[in-house]
């Protein structure tokens, strides 16, 4: 398998993701400029975190019109796999590849913090290495992490098991205090109905090495790799 990590002007997470795939996991991965229009070589596209285009207007609003995004849409239609992290998730929302939108954090401040997350759905390509309802730890870092969707959309997400990650307490309760940014239903990550596009606020690439204090993030990447390579787990 081979992954593409897209560089947008202003994004900053691309090197962090690249480091995990290339140096930690020894996988084939390219950094791809946002003006690229062909993604045929790749099995997985990662839209990284950061502040593409300064997050001006709304996070992800300008990046969605990058030249590469036509190819990303086609990639999505073919059922190939896309992971959006932080700003990358915001782009997927702006492109309507995932439902909903993000708002400013409820406390109006940027939040950089470790969070506990409840893994709600392990039947996805991205999370098959976890147990369902497992409590994991990953950092968030964003000013617009407050996921919003209306009630019908939420019902649909619930019905289709599209909610993958939710903010929780260290013992797994979905309380308002554990809901760092005020997201609808403590949502930290969702997948599309077809199951090939995951958007998440927490940064798995920031907790994929022991030296960084945790490796729960690495299991996102190994889940994908194992499945795409057909490795039994």
């Amino acid at each position, binding site marked *: 398998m081979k992954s593409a990590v897209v560089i947008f002007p202003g994004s900053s997470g691309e090197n962090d993701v690249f480091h995990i795939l290339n140096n930690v996991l020894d996988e084939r991965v390219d950094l791809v400029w946002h003006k690229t229009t062909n993604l045929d070589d790749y099995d997985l596209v990662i839209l990284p975190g950061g502040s593409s285009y300064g997050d001006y207007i709304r996070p992800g609003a300008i990046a969605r019109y990058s030249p590469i995004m036509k190819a990303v849409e086609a990639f999505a239609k073919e059922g190939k796999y896309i992971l959006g992290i932080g700003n990358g998730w915001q782009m997927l929302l702006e492109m309507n590849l995932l439902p909903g939108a993000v708002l400013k954090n409820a406390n109006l401040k940027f939040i950089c*913090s470790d969070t506990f997350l409840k893994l709600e759905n392990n039947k996805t390509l991205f999370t098959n290495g976890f147990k369902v309802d497992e409590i994991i730890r990953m950092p968030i870092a964003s000013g617009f992490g407050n996921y919003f969707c209306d009630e019908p959309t939420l019902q649909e997400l619930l019905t289709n098991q599209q909610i993958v990650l939710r903010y929780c307490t260290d013992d797994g309760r979905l309380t308002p205090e554990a809901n760092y940014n005020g997201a609808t239903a403590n949502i930290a990550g969702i997948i599309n109905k077809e199951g090939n596009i995951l958007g998440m606020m927490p940064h798995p690439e920031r907790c994929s090495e022991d030296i960084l204090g945790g490796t729960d993030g690495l299991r996102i990447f190994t889940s994908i790799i194992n499945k795409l390579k057909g490795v039994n787990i």
Partner: protein
Amino acid sequence: MAGDLTYKDMGLNDEEYSQIIEILGREPNYLELGMFSVMWSEHCGYKSSRPLLKTLPTTGPQVIHGPGENAGVVDIGDGEALVFKIESHNSPSAVEPYEGAATGVGGIIRDIFTMGARPIAVLNSLRLGELKNERVKYLLDGIVAGIAGYGNSLGIPTVGGEVYFNSVYDNNPLVNAMGVGLVNIDEIALAVAGEVGSPLILVGSKTGRDGIHGATFSSEELSDDKADKRPTVQAGDPFMEKLLIEACLELIGENLVAGMQDLGAAGLTSSIAESASKKGRGVRVDVSKVPQRETNMTPYEIMLSESQERMLVVPIEGAADKVIEICNKWDLEAVIIGEVTDDGMFEVCVADEVVGSVPVLALTDDCPLYLREGAEPEYYKQHKAFVEDSLAEKDIAKAFLDLLASPTIASKEWIFSQYDYQVMTNTVIVPGAADAAVLRVKGRNKGIALTTDCNSRMVYLDPYKGAILAVCEAARNLACVGAKPLALTNCLNFGNPEKPNIYWQLQEAIKGIGTASLALDVPVVSGNVSLYNEKEDKPIYPTPTIGMVGILPDIDKRQDMAFKKAQDLIVMLGDFSSALGGSEYLYICHGLETGQVPEVNLGKEANLISLLLQGLADKIFNSCHDISEGGLAICVAESALAGNLGCRINLVANQLRKDALLFSEAPSRVVVSINPENVENLEKLADSLDIKMNIIGEVTGSNISCLVDNEEVIDVTLDKARQVWGEALKCIMA
């Protein structure tokens, strides 16, 4: 800004004006006058401080570039170097906290990548007034948001810093930002103007009317009647800066650059003059080529504008087109605005018409220097005469909780959780976890440690000793995480140096920095001076902020301050002390800012640092935390809170006052926790370096308990302590 300012309005005095006439052999025109005034401001010309700065030790085998470049450069082995500098953005932040602080980060980061280095970390050192003041809260809120807004957007982690609160900063907050970059030694870029005929390329934002005379105004006391003379506030565009970083590093990587210089204070005038002066060149600039954001800008406005996010690039021969092409790839405007000449003149033109012409060196090297007379202030002896015996006894348990809740001591999570401190995935010791931040260097075994320090109350009470304390604390903080201190940068925030008492503070503090820097072998490689920090004649405390970098030979041997294991022994390295002068305890519990600043023995400090480094290399310590604000009791409490493990301390008073024993801020002291098996090893080590060690307690239970002569004076549950310490700042700022 119409052309109606006099030379006095521009901050020049009569003698300086005469000197300009003498240099030119005629009266300067308005543009030329403006150029002189900004270049001869304290901010750019260091009129009052340069003679003193010259006394600082700046060399050592580790130093690649000391002061004189955009930032200092130190060797960290493997062909790599660290590039770092600290800079103030005080007056803009007092006016508009968000943009002031944001553009402060922008400015210091430009100094780093101008040298060809990839910026890898930001630190921030803040001083604010009392938080009971609504305006101060507004300032803190905006300043922190501004640093976060800019740094986070750049994708550079803000990994450390400090903040102190004192009413002397009510109207004059300090915002000092330190930038750190990593560079391959053979890719270091310098600000030189290249060859005669080389084009000058201006890259980045369009030029607007923002910040004209910013350099002058940051060198003057702010008074309200000058309000209308104030420059337009500069706003930052971090996205533009991010593009500049990537483009400039690509230009250097492709070997296309002869010289590069950021545009900071005094804008085009300063960056062009400084680049040209290094090789004694001249320059000819056509201001009509400068991309402008506003209409009808005059040459004066264009040359003095401090619009942010602009760089000056001098390409190597024949590379101009390639430079412009790479900039355009990054969506950056890049325009040739002039060229290097051989006549030593700085010529400003509008198309073919020359509108100003002054010798380059007159702007840079002829800036007048003032050797002023310092005078010891009245207060100095008075404070020294204070005797602690006169202090009333206070309830120790209550004092302990009051100190935990003091904003200067309380948890700073409200601040650092707004900073993205993890991006780049190198931060292995995060804010709040230890005395210094630690970053790994990917692909290497080594790590680097970063800190900023200055207890300005101590500096106020005794500028010489206080400055020594600041350097010592920085070095000790690095040693506590396992890093050998390498070099320092400093930001001298002082009041009006024309006042003999303030000049004395400056003299004494610089002497102190020099003394400590020599003794500990941490040369001064860069810095910045911010004078005239007073409002309504009320100066700030002299605040020589020290930024220091160190190297960990083995990143796996880093240490933080958290207690790790029940039954570990708690050991104090260093002496018990009765010194309460300048302590947070005196301030919070007695309302006093006075006393004799504790003695520091630099030999002992150096030995303590060696002990820490050796002990960490031998893996003896399970935690390390130096004693600073709040003294021994707060130090132990912080280690307990960080590890979420209780402790029981039992001290022997030995004639000392209980409060002094627990809350003294005497330097050269560290609390470590060790496995009982290691007692002998530690004893041997401490003995060989002549450092006293005392086993003062053990890690145990879920309370923080302190006994003095077997009598319990503090017994607080971890939960209670966490609530008091953890919520204080959060609640005030809510």
